[in-house]
C-alpha cells in the first residue's frame, strides 16, 4: 500500500489542485476531509468534484452502503458565509444524478478536527423523537450482536497462543 508522507503527493490532491490552482487552502482542506470520511468515518464511494462556478472542491459519498449519496462542502472556521452565499452554494453545488436540497458543511479546524453540520434549503422539521429512539435502539442492538462471539474469539486466541507456545 502506498504511503504519502506529504499530502501534496497524494494523487487525489494532485488531481484537485489541477482544477483550482489558486485555491490551495481550500483544496488542502478538501483532501483532509476526504481522508477523514474514507479512513476515519468509513464512508462509501467518496469522490472529489470540481465546482466551476465557485472554483472550489466539494465531495460526495454515502455514510453506509445503503444510504443515499450526500454532498459535502469543506470549509474552515473563519470563512464567512451569508444567507445569500448559502443560496449560491445550493444552486452551484450539485451533481447530475442527485436531487437534493441538502448540503453537509464540513468545518475544518486548525488542529484538523472536522465538524459536520447539515444545511437544507427551505424549512425541514426535526426528526420525530420516536424515530431517533428507534435508530438509537437499533444501533445498540447491532453493537450487542457483534459482541456475541467475543468470548468465543478470546478463547480461540488464548488456545492458539498456548498450542503455538511462546517460541
Amino acid at each position, binding site marked *: 500500500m502506498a504511503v504519502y508522507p506529504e499530502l501534496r503527493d497524494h494523487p487525489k490532491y494532485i488531481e484537485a489542485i489541477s482544477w483550482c490552482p489558486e485555491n490551495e487552502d481550500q483544496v488542502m482542506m478538501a483532501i483532509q476531509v476526504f481522508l477523514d470520511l474514507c479512513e476515519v*468515518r468509513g464512508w462509501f464511494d467518496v469522490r472529489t468534484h470540481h465546482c466551476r462556478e465557485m472554483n472550489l472542491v466539494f465531495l460526495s459519498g454515502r455514510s453506509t452502503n445503503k444510504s443515499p449519496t450526500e454532498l459535502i462542502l469543506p470549509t*474552515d472556521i473563519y470563512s464567512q458565509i*451569508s*444567507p445569500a452565499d448559502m443560496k449560491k452554494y445550493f444552486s452551484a453545488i450539485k451533481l447530475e444524478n442527485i436531487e437534493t436540497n441538502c448540503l453537509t458543511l464540513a468545518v475544518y479546524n486548525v488542529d484538523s478536527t472536522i465538524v459536520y453540520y447539515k*444545511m437544507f434549503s427551505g424549512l*425541514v422539521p426535526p426528526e420525530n423523537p420516536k424515530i431517533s429512539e428507534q435508530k438509537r435502539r437499533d444501533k445498540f442492538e447491532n453493537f450487542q450482536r457483534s459482541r456475541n462471539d467475543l468470548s468465543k474469539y478470546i478463547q480461540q486466541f488464548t488456545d492458539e497462543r498456548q498450542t503455538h507456545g511462546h517460541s
Partner: protein
Amino acid sequence: MPMTSLISVKMSLFVTHGKVFVWDTDDVMKLREDYRIVGNLVGSLPRAPRQNIQLGLPLQLAPDEVTLLLEKGFCELLESVKLSSQIDDDRLKQFTDMRQTSYQQQIPLFIGERRKEINQHRHKIIEGKKAKRQKLKQDGEHDENDEHDSIEEREDDFNIDDIAIPSIKPEQAIVQLFTESPWKSRMTSIHKEWQYPESDSDKLRYAVFKDLWEKKYYLTSGTKFGGDFLVYPGDPALFHSFYIAVCIPHHDKLTALEIVTLGRLGATVRKTVILCSICDNEVYYTSLQWTGIT
C-alpha cells in the same frame, strides 16, 4: 379558522406606556384559538396574588403580534386618556355610594352565613352550655330537681336560634378589586399612531413573523433558546416547538464557527435552527441540523 358571526366585532387592545395588553378573558381565548396569537400573561391572579408561578390577566402582546392583528383587521387599538390629578366630586360621590351599597348588601349575607354555621355546630354549643351550667351549679347551690333541668333543656333549643349575631363593621366588608377600569366608557379613545416596525431589523423580524404565521404556525418569543422566535406546529400548550428562528439580513456574513454554534444549540434541544432572511421580497429559509457524526 375564525368563527363566522353575523356581526364581526373587533377585539380591543389597550396601549399603556407603549405596551399592548388584552384584558378580556374571552378575547385572550379567541386570539389563541382562532388567530394563533399566544401572547404572554403578565398580571397577578386575584385569588393567588403572592406567587408568580401562574400569572393572570392581562395578556401582553409582542409588537409583531400587534402589527399582524391590526393589519388583518381583527383588532383595534385603544388608549386611555390621561387621568387628571384632581378627582372630581361627582366621581368621588359615585365611588363612596358604591362602597356603601355594597357594604349594606353584605350585612344580611354575613348574618345568614353565621346562622348556618351556628346550626351546624348546635350540638357542640348545647353541650358547651350544659357543661357551663353544671359547673356553675356545683360551685353555687345544690338544690335543683329534674323538672327544672328538662325545662332548661327545651329552652336551649330556642336559645340557639335567638343567639344575637352582630352586623359586620364597615372595615370587615369585602371590597371588589377591579381588573378593568370601571370608568372605561369615559376614558378610552382610538389610538392611531402604532409605528412598529420602523427599523430594518424590525422590518425583517416582522416579515419573518408574518410569513411563518401565514404558514399556519404558532410563534412565541425565542429568547429562551437564543433565537428570535420559537415556531410550533400547533398550540404551544400541546406541542414542543420544531424550529428556532434566527433572523439575519440576507447579505450579513456568519462565520462557519457561528453556524456550528447555532447547529449545536438546535441539536442539544432537539429542534432545527432556521436562518431567515429576505431575498427578492420573499422570506428565504435555511435549516441547520446536526449530522449525528461524532
